[in-house]
């Protein structure tokens, strides 16, 4: 039996999957290191004892509760760095594809592959690592590990006992939390890499299952169980629908070519994209399967009508987790959506995708609904959740413009660049906002606007950072939130303006002749103006309301450093060379996606 698999022996395997390998190594380390101890095994019949180092009395150095956090942060930093290497090395070198039979190849000239590591997947893996890194950093202060924790003294009062037990509990669950975070990272990376729908689903489920647990992680808090239950049930139902959609597509792809080759591969001569393109009229089986497929992704990006669980999940869980839901999980949903919508069912130039009306309508409803709901809430976490819904609407509008088929190739590129860039910078300012909510959460409650009252006096630097994050979310120039929105609007407008009759004399004539996709841009602009109210309200309560508590914010050094980092990134990603680098990266990703 020849065990020499062509895949495992290939030098490109490790090279192309460095981030994933890093995460797997990190997971192994997280399992092994805290369990190292002085256990020995006695060789039977003798007195010799061989140390096996797993179990027994754990070593003091390795059982330190700080270690899991350090391991997971290092792993994520390495994973992010190795993902970013793609952009340093250049496109040709780093595009690697792996097919189902284990063949691995650089440059992806063949087309029947299931994993594809290119600029598109790598920019998303970088986003995931960065967002998870910020969540982890916040959790290090939210759920602090104390080296000097002691068992409660039996004579101490009940509250002291409870606190001591809580500290011990926090120490004990460090490993669990960081392990789960790394599983999320692995699952998300698989989603970004896969060009096979089933593999994509496996990645999605791996990430989702870990996220469900993480949402419920602070189980001593009354709301986390409820948040997790709602999020879990909605998420599971939608992923079951997704899987059913996949199975329909599987049947369809088989029956479309006389059952010869049922496949869930997107690419390849007999992949779904090819079958889709060969379809002359829209077949109901394909349409139903496709629609069901989108349900799960729609849930991940919290688009209407799958948004109901999002506000509950955000406001019930701890703020670091909410930040991960709002950035990493959302980026994962869009990575999958882009792969499916653009690669598989993207329209030919000049023809309109069948999903265009649905998506266009959904995008308008999503952004409007999100903004209106955000206006009427008094809970900052819910507010951010609704703003996340609204942002999903903006990005769906970009996808709709892409589906209109009006856009030229370069405009399509701009639209995808805008989406990717938005998800990229979202990880800076949305995470930043949640980091600050984490700080208010450590001492009390972050689920009411009152926790932000008078923050400007209590902690000016943090308050100013929060205000900048809010302005970036609102898309005020020249912060980075503006640039992404602007690129979306630009893409929509340059796609649709050509459709109006040029000869129209008056503005009204022109407006009535233009393709309706144009109105998506108008609705985006109006919604942005609307959203200013609730973002500025945060500034108003921070600077002008009297504080309800005189307690200063906790020290939380890790969070402070990360907030400042996010602040700097938010500012410089809107203007200047750094922003250009990011846009270039996003453009490269867009080109790679469109080339598949």
């Amino acid at each position, binding site marked *: 039996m020849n065990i020499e698999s062509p895949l495992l022996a290939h030098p490109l395997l490790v090279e192309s999957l460095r981030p994933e390998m890093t995460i797997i190594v990190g997971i192994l380390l997280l399992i092994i290191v805290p369990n190292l101890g002085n256990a020995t095994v006695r060789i039977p019949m003798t007195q010799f004892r061989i140390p096996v180092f797993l179990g027994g009395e754990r070593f003091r150095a390795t059982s330190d509760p700080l270690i899991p956090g350090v391991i997971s942060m290092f792993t994520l930093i390495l994973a992010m760095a190795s993902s970013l290497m793609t952009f340093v090395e250049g496109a040709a070198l780093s595009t690697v594809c792996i097919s189902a039979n284990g063949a691995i190849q650089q440059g992806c000239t063949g087309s029947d592959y299931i994993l594809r590591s290119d600029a598109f997947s790598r920019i998303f893996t970088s986003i995931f690592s960065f967002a998870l890194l910020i969540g982890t950093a916040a959790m290090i202060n939210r759920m602090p590990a104390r080296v000097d924790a002691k068992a409660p003294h039996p004579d101490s009062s009940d509250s002291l006992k409870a606190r001591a037990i809580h500290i011990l509990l926090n120490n004990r669950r460090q490993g669990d939390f960081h392990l789960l975070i790394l599983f999320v990272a692995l699952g998300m990376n698989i989603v970004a890499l896969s060009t096979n729908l089933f593999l994509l689903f496996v990645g999605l489920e791996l990430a989702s299952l870990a996220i469900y647990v993480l949402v419920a992680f602070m189980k001593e808090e009354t709301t986390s169980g409820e948040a997790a239950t709602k999020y879990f049930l909605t998420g599971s*139902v939608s992923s*079951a629908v997704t899987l*059913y959609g996949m199975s329909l597509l599987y049947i369809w792809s088989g029956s479309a070519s006389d059952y010869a080759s049922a496949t869930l591969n997107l690419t390849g001569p007999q992949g779904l994209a090819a079958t889709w393109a060969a379809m002359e009229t829209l077949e109901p089986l394909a349409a139903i399967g496709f629609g069901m497929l989108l349900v799960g992704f729609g849930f991940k990006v919290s688009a209407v009508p799958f948004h109901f669980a999002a506000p509950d999940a955000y406001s019930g869980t701890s703020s670091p987790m909410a930040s991960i839901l709002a950035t990493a999980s959302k980026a994962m949903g869009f990575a999958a959506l882009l792969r499916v919508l653009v690669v598989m069912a993207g329209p030919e130039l000049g023809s309109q995708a069948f999903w265009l009306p649905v998506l266009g309508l959904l995008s308008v409803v999503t952004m409007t609904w999100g903004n209106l709901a955000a206006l009427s809430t008094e809970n900052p976490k819910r507010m951010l959740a609704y703003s996340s819904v609204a942002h999903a609407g903006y990005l769906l509008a970009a996808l709709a413009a892409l589906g209109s088929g009006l856009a030229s190739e370069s405009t399509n590129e701009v639209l995808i660049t805008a989406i990717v860039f938005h998800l990229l910078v979202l990880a800076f300012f949305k995470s930043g906002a949640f980091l600050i909510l984490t700080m208010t959460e450590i001492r009390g409650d972050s689920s009411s606007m009152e926790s932000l009252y008078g923050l400007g006096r209590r902690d000016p630097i943090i308050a100013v950072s929060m205000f900048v994050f809010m302005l970036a979310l609102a898309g005020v120039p020249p912060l980075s939130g503006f640039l992404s929105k602007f690129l979306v609007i630009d893409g929509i407008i340059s796609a649709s303006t050509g459709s109006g009759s040029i000869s129209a004399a008056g503005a009204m004539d022109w407006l009535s002749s233009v393709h309706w996709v144009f109105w998506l841009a108008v609705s985006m602009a109006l919604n942005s103006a609307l959203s200013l109210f609730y973002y500025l309200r945060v500034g108003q309560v921070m600077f002008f309301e009297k504080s309800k508590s005189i307690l200063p914010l906790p020290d939380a050094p890790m969070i402070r450093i990360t907030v400042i980092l996010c602040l700097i990134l938010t500012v410089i990603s809107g203007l200047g060379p750094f922003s250009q680098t990011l846009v270039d990266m996003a453009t490269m990703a867009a080109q790679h996606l469109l080339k598949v």
Partner: protein
Amino acid sequence: MIDPGYISGLSAILFFIGLAGAFTRKHAIIVLMCIEIMLNAVNLNFVAVAMQTGDPEGWVFISIAIAIAASEVAVGLAIFLSLYSTRETINLDEVDLLKH
């Protein structure tokens, strides 16, 4: 040999029963069971294709899907237990702290 179309039909019926149950029932564990019914329906679809094409790829999908379903149940029940430990109920209508 029976027609794979029949199996797909059965699958569709099961799926929609599961879906309807997931939306109407308020007991968390029953909702979970409805999700299991939906996943089973998916398996039937895959097996129908595998039967038609003779390609074992569908079987691979099924075994993975079963594994995912099993872990989903485990995770779900763990979450329900954590909900129960703070709220003494897992009826979805009674869990409404976050609705404000």
